[in-house]
């Protein structure tokens, strides 16, 4: 009897708290889930209706071309994953063994940058660096003894994917290494383990445990990568399913074919997602910065040089395209661009849609976090369906990439007459839902902790409703909300998948305009726009960071 100390509030206690008018939280969660279901369900309805209506055509889409696309989709993703993850292991290890490496904090900050950057901006950066007329075209031509053909096709896709995913994987691996208890390092050092022994006995076990999840996540990001393949891939030889969906809808006007591609893409992502969750990976990326710990490692000169070279190489890979984006952007006629009404209009459209999308995303995330907590407290033992949906289930929307939802609605709306008028709604809602898992990841821990801490006190003092929201919850949640908001806004600002399908002359966003200028060989304009878009995203993240910190909570 004496061992059964009730440390946590009993279910009955929570029931009591809940019955006092906080059930609105569950209702909010149901609303949010219904909105998501409507968005995804509408897309699926479009796909199903189309495939039933024109079943033979959907079947004939299974041809050699389709086989080639699927093979290429998987092949480029596998290569990108290998090229990102394997080097990342060693870069992470190098960074972990040199906690005092000059500029380490800045390097890690820089490694967080690609995550915040729209894919089209990175693609432009890589083109200005390695393209046919890029900054490195001269040296590369001399090196290869001919004219540098420019980086397109598979190699371009790989460089871009490594640019995005190597820093990401490095940060994840570093996190895994930092999670090792300090005593292990002390012990390794005390026992006189050299770099090889300490890698084999201390570091590798930690890295190996993290490897499947990280590799799976990178693979997932690569098979759903649309913008990179669209801008850097070339022709039928370097096309992935997502780009093929877009081409079938916008160029070939072949919805039956698009439906087949889309269903295949869903099957593919679903399989990868399933394997991922089996591996215990969390598909939502955390943007926190690993903190350097004090390490007790002795490093010989040879290893130090090797590590420094590794870090420098990774740094060049990340900093190169970013620097090229800035240089090429500054070389463009920025003043003329700023005065261009099309640019002004697109900037305004982008910002308005991004704000709407972020508001929606944060609202959904908050509703789901609230509903999950309310349900978790109410239940007896096992989580019910609704709670699971509001919790882990929310991450499942990542199975349906934006282009897939876009394609479904495109097919559904194409005869309706307001296909292109739907563009703003589609961009805002699809990106809101796509950003939602990340927003939840930012908001839910703080929300749950605040609930745990404050529920009883609020009940005792009669603080509820609006008072509770403004006095108690908002001060605690403003920072995570700001993070989620900024992330959702950046995602929406950089969106090309949905707007590529629904965009038109009347509704243009910055990435759409950028793609159009690139398509008409106005590379300077494109470079200038890329700089503008990149700065917009970074400014956003910066402001969100400031806003969150303004008042210490």
């Amino acid at each position, binding site marked *: 009897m004496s061992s059964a100390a009730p440390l946590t509030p009993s279910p*009955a206690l929570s029931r009591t708290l809940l019955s006092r008018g906080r059930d609105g939280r569950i209702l909010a969660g149901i609303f949010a889930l219904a909105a998501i279901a409507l968005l995804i369900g509408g897309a699926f309805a479009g796909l199903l209706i189309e495939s039933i209506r024109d079943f033979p055509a959907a079947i004939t889409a299974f041809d050699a071309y389709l086989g080639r696309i699927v093979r290429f989709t998987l092949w480029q993703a596998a290569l990108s994953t290998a090229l990102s993850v394997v080097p990342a292991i060693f870069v992470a290890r190098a960074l972990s063994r040199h906690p005092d490496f000059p500029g380490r904090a800045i390097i890690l900050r820089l490694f967080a940058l690609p995550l915040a950057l729209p894919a089209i901006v990175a693609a432009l950066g890589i083109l200005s660096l390695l393209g046919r007329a890029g900054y490195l075209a001269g040296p590369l031509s001399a090196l290869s003894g001919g004219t540098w053909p420019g980086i397109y096709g598979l190699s371009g896709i790989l460089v871009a994917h490594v640019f995005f995913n190597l820093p990401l994987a490095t940060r994840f691996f570093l996190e895994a290494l930092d999670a090792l208890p300090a005593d292990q390092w002390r012990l390794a050092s005390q026992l006189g383990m050299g770099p090889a022994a300490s890698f084999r006995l201390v570091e590798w076990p930690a890295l190996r445990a993290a490897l499947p999840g990280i590799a799976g996540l990178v693979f997932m990001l690569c098979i759903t990568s649309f913008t990179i393949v669209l801008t850097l891939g070339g022709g039928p030889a370097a096309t992935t399913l997502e780009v093929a969906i877009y081409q079938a809808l916008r160029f070939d006007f072949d919805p039956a074919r698009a439906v087949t591609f889309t269903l295949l893409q869903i099957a593919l992502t679903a399989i990868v997602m399933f394997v991922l969750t089996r591996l215990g990976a969390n598909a939502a990326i955390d943007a926190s910065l690993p903190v350097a710990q004090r390490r007790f490692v002795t490093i010989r000169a040879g290893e130090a040089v090797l590590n420094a070279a590794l870090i420098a190489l990774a740094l060049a890979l990340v900093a190169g395209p970013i620097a090229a984006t800035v240089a090429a952007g500054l070389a463009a006629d920025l003043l003329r661009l700023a005065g261009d009404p099309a640019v002004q209009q697109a900037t305004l459209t982008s910002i308005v849609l991004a704000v709407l999308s972020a508001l929606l995303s944060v609202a959904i995330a908050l509703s789901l976090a609230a509903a999950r907590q309310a349900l978790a407290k109410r239940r007896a033992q096992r989580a019910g369906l609704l709670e699971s949906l509001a919790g882990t289930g929310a991450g499942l929307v990542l199975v349906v990439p934006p282009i897939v939802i876009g394609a479904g609605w495109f097919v559904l709306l194409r005869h309706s007459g307001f296909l292109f008028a739907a563009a703003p709604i589609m961009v805002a809602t699809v990106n809101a839902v796509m950003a939602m898992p990340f927003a939840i990841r930012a908001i839910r821990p703080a929300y749950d902790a605040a609930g745990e801490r404050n529920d009883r006190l609020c009940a005792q003092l009669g603080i509820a409703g609006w008072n509770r929201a403004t*006095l108690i919850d908002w001060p605690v949640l403003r920072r995570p909300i700001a993070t989620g908001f900024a992330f959702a806004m950046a995602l929406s600002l950089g969106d090309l998948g949905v707007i590529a399908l629904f965009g038109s002359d009347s509704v243009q966003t910055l990435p759409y305009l950028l793609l159009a200028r690139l398509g008409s060989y106005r590379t300077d304009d494109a470079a200038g726009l890329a700089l503008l878009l990149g700065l917009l995203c970074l400014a956003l993240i910066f402001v969100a960071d400031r806003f969150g910190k303004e008042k210490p909570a």
Partner: protein
Amino acid sequence: MKDRLRHEGAPVRLDDVHFSYGDAPMRFDVAFRPAAITALMGPSGSGKSTLLNLVAGFETPSSGRVLIGGEDVTSLPPAARPVSMMFQENNLFAHLDVEKNVGLGRSPSLRLTVEDRAAVAEALQRTGLGGKEHRLPRELSGGERQRVAIARVLVRNRPVLLLDEPFGSLGPALRADMLELLTEVQAERKMTVLFVTHQPEDARRVADDMVFLEDGSVAAAGPATTFFSEAGPEAFRRYIGAQITESARKRT
């Protein structure tokens, strides 16, 4: 009701209250004298905190009634009961300063009148927190944080005070200070105090009455002087005897 009760304490009574926590059924049938300090003691899991939660309204009995000042409060929400409660921790909102944390005892929307502000200032003076109005909880010591909670009890001015081991994590000297403050405040306001503690010496120091709980029901109740004398209940004497040996063993 509240006005009548405010300055004279109110009797608290659990009338054949049944409650089940998991598969441990509890039954309480006990009355607490108005304007007295009653210490609740008993082994972990014996139902001390549950009893407090039932009075505060955080738990709902499956049957029976909770009476405060003769009125049935069984179905009232926590904030509507004439009760203040102090927990072991998390008595303060971490992001609000001392003054606001106390002010919430007057108005859950923090819209304070001139009188409210005066009451807050007075309570802060009374609890020795003058000059610390704008500190955040993390800038205070553990003892100071509980003083803020006591200040809020003062401004709330409810006839019943429930203490769920609020000084359990403080050192002996600080605990003695807090108990002294508590008895002074109680002497002024004549609150009915239910005080859960694990420390027999704390109970002996402040309690008028004792209630000893075991296995989810009241095993013994009576004046503290009797409890701590040779004539005290057998079960209670066994319990504190065991406690003393245990704490003696811990010390070595």
